[in-house]
């Protein structure tokens, strides 16, 4: 099929509908408002439900209800709105409910700015809600990748009964790029025998719950969740490595900063400095081993992390590199985007040139 020009937020919404999402609950906030706008226009035509909730908190709890009843469901917001959803996300994890949550990040903290940022990495990968829980967090870098990953996001959510977050920065939501709609077949998924779909007097009722008041029972529940997170960590790490052979500098970046890093690598190449880019696509589970191996190559003199934050993912880079190579950081926060030249200069400084 011929390529079309899509705006990121519209593509997110369309890809979700194509992935079988039939319930969307959300509340507008820049820079993601085109998602609910698109859903409002197109979800009813797909036979689904669009509801603009009275708040982000209501939306995430509607997600809990719809998911508990077995629906493919999504919500989206941007940073301050995602903060409001944290309680609901913790409950979804506790009750083992699948859902897709899209965060089109803007600058923070607090209300911050409406321009693009990546300051919600800790919240997404460490949890902004209470308790021992994890989300699968996917961080695409192009609109094509957003579209391609959306089916996977819903499938992974159902497969592991876990919320999956799409972690994007505002530029991905707002920019236009060519998209080719390739059909990704749905994964072979089991029936949702746990969903509250009515017993028909033929089985005991299913109960969706995150309350385990007996400490031993709650402990067993946590250990069961932990076992699930271990399986996800084993099976679902995703990353991309570009031009790492003989690289002196290894950039590490997720989302659009990976594109800045690739542009910086080209500038360095013109000066005779080889630079590669390691791009985590799943930021939880984080591809620690793959990054450790890439950084461990003899040619690599410095690892340079690029983020639209004051340094969050760099903690995971340090865990991965584990002291075998120096780890440097360049970033801007609050909606300012470094130029490829600034990124290239940071790499040169890291090399002592």
């Amino acid at each position: 099929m011929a390529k079309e020009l899509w705006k990121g937020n519209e593509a997110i919404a369309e890809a979700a509908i194509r992935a079988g999402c039939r319930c969307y609950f959300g509340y507008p906030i820049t820079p993601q408002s085109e998602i609910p706008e698109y859903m409002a226009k197109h979800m009813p035509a797909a036979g689904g439900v669009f509801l603009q909730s009275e708040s982000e908190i209501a939306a995430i709890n509607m997600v809990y209800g719809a998911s508990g009843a077995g629906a493919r469901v999504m919500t989206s917001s941007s940073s301050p709105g995602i903060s409001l959803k944290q309680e609901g996300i913790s409950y979804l994890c506790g009750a083992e409910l699948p859902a897709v949550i899209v965060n089109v990040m803007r600058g923070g903290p607090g209300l911050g700015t409406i321009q693009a940022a990546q300051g919600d990495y800790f919240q997404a990968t460490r949890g902004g809600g209470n308790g021992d829980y994890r989300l699968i967090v996917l961080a695409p870098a192009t609109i094509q990748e957003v579209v391609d990953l959306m089916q996977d996001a819903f499938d992974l959510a159902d497969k592991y009964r876990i919320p999956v977050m799409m972690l994007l920065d505002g530029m991905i939501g707002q920019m236009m790029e060519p998209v080719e709609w390739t059909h990704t077949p749905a994964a072979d998924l089991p029936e949702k025998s746990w969903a509250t779909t009515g017993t028909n007097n033929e089985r005991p009722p299913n109960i969706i719950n995150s309350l385990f008041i007996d400490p031993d029972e709650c402990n067993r529940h946590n250990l069961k969740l932990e076992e699930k997170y271990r399986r996800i960590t084993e099976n679902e790490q995703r990353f991309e490595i570009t031009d790492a052979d003989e690289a002196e500098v290894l950039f590490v970046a997720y989302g659009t900063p990976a594109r800045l890093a690739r542009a910086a690598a080209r500038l360095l190449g013109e000066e005779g400095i080889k630079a590669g880019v390691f791009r985590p696509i799943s930021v939880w589970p984080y591809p620690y081993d793959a990054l450790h191996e890439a950084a461990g190559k003899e040619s690599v003199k410095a690892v340079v992390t690029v983020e639209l934050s004051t340094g969050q993912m760099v903690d995971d880079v340090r865990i991965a590199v584990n002291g075998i190579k120096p780890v440097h950081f360049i970033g801007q926060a609050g909606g300012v985007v470094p130029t490829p030249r600034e990124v290239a200069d940071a790499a040169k400084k890291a090399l002592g040139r």
Partner: protein
Amino acid sequence: MKLPDKAVTIIAGHYGTGKTEFAVNLAIAMARDKRRTALVDLDIINPYFRSIERKAELEKEGIIIHVTSHGGKGDTPAIPAEVMSVFADTGLQSIIDLGGDPGGARVLGAYKPQLDAVPHDFWYAVNLNRPENRDPEKVIADIRETEKLSRQKITGLVNTTHLGRETVLSDILKGDEHAAAIAGRLGLPLVYTVGERKFESEAKDLVKGSFFPINIYMIKPWELGDAKGGQFEWLLEE
């Protein structure tokens, strides 16, 4: 290619059609033709990838710029009072870049008395590669909605068909056919077919709209890395 001679030229269309790129290039072409030119960014829809990001280049060309509050990057897009000056300043030619969707044209309704009093054109940009622009019926419905919300009549179409950096000649030619057919049904002219300068020699005799060659000014931050020796070389000047 003939440049507009009316006092005000307004550009509307769905977001992502290439309106802003065309508006910026049109302003520069007019300024280089020694006309006093203003670019008015009245986009109240989209706070990203705005013409104001090219403020330095535009001001270097002598173009006067008016933009919504917070340099177009705010969450509450208040319209500055000085926009009114473009209707009063005789001898000034203004280009008004509206926000995307019919909703983006709503802001124009506030200037109905001023616009009715000056000669103006109101062009609708069409990009065949945008899903919303594929169906001629939908384009016509959007034009009617744009007219209703803006309280002004569309006076011409502009073919801005592109596919970002993957644009090829056939995109421009197919878009030209598509826009010309819609314009024909509406009894309106297809004023320009817009395309990057590199397509000019091949495209200009094949298209129905007058070919309007553009440079790409609205680039993404990582594309700055390709500036040296590439199509964004102009960004490295000085």
